[in-house]
């Protein structure tokens, strides 16, 4: 099983949920299909969905909720 990563398309602040009172889009062990939303990146007060460009199972998130991210930075590691 190959390990794959989903990269942040934009620089900004990473969020794992659509709003603070919602569950995370994806958790460890969840399966991810291509096109699934795995989080949000806020760039200058504009919120952008991060969609998976590959499928697999979440091994781990590489950044925490509300962490700053750079464009191209790996956000999540997938197996499969």
């Amino acid at each position: 099983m190959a390990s794959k990563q989903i990269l942040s398309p934009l620089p900004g602040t990473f969020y794992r949920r659509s709003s603070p009172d919602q569950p995370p889009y994806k958790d460890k062990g969840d399966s991810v299909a291509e096109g699934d939303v795995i989080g949000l990146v806020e760039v200058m007060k504009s919120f952008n969905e991060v969609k998976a460009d590959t499928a697999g199972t979440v091994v781990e998130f590489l950044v925490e909720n509300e962490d700053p991210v750079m464009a191209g930075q790996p956000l999540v590691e997938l197996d499969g």
Partner: protein
Amino acid sequence: MPITSLLIANRGEIAVRIVRAARELGIRTVQAHSDADADMLAVRLADDAVSIGPPHAAKSYLNIDAIVEAARAKGVDAIHPGYGFLAENADFADAIEAAGMIFVGPSGSNIRLLGDKVAARQAADAAGVPTVPGSEGRIDDVAAARAVVDEIGYPVLVKAAAGGGGRGIRVITSAEEFDRLVPQAAAEAQAAFGDGGLYIEKLIARARHVEVQVLGDGTDVVHCYERECSLQRRRQKVWEEAPAAMLDDDIRQSLCAAAVALAKSVGYRGAGTAEFLYDDETRDFYFIEMNTRIQVEHPVTELVTGIDLVREMILIAGGEPLRLAQDDIAVSGHAIECRINAEDPYNDFMPFPGTVAGLTVPGGPGVRFDTMLYPGYAIPPFYDSLLGKLIVWDDSRDAALARLDGALAEFDVEGVTTTAPLHQALVRDDDVRAGAFHTKFLEQWLEREPLGEVKKREVAG
């Protein structure tokens, strides 16, 4: 006691503005910054700097404890909040005072009062300042609704008293629509919110946004005349002017007097802005809200009155009485401000953080550029997109428009996409040149895609 040292609890262009104003007063400046802002221009210009936390604003610029602690550690007398972030947070003002320092702004109780929509409306009513006509509170039957509409006239907005976020709002333009829609609105409100109560407000269909700058010392209040900020996109101001060229002088006088009356009635201290909607067909104006801080667009007022508003607010906070009487304040010429944002006007204003490869700032008489940019600066993606404000002054509005056109042609930020092309198109638009606009004008104008006419510049770097 005069302020001798000041912590600036903000970032971007306004932090630069405050550092400069304080420096001219001989005040030692300490610039607070998040970890993402360690190399920002205000940090470079200030005497000292202090980190207040991680990039995420909730953990730094919105963190009251971290800011008060940083101010205490640096031994400053006072904290300037700028605009946005904690500038209108009464708890922040109270925490600073409780820590034995000065908050550069009004008292926490003033911020609390004027920040509450209902309380502010009541304060305005009590001071004799016109508010948008409507029901005094909730209305529970059709007959009472009818009585309100008979008094204020059509068109009206009918809202569910228990609603929110734009839900359950109807526009009613005639008695026929009233008979059909009001019972329906009450039934829907009952079904949606379990509460059939309604609220009725006059619909101000085509209004200008006009606002009055005031300065108070807790006892006396003066006004520095008005600004017009009708060109807005998604309720964000894009272009501002002083004075409001289309305002008749008798209306100007009563508008400014209303703002002073409101500020005086609450014992206002510091710089503040009373915002109004102005209907130029009926010549009626209505108070919307009072902003208890310095505003982004304050420079247009500075250019037409010659008053340094940031300096005045620092002096007032240090305990000085107002240095200007109303008769000392006069308007000369006309000023226009364009907000230059890191957004792509050709792509639905998508934010565009990046690194400034080169910067060409326009010059000449009557041209001012308030910014935090410098060549090589990497614009962080964590905060708002305002990069700077291009402000021009000339002796008439027509001359100011010509000066702005020239200044925009000189202006260039390499490596970053900005809204400058939007302003180039606006400054040449016939309606904008004629001052024929209202608060919905820009959004309707953008739907016609006028930017196709302006040649898109290649982004270098």
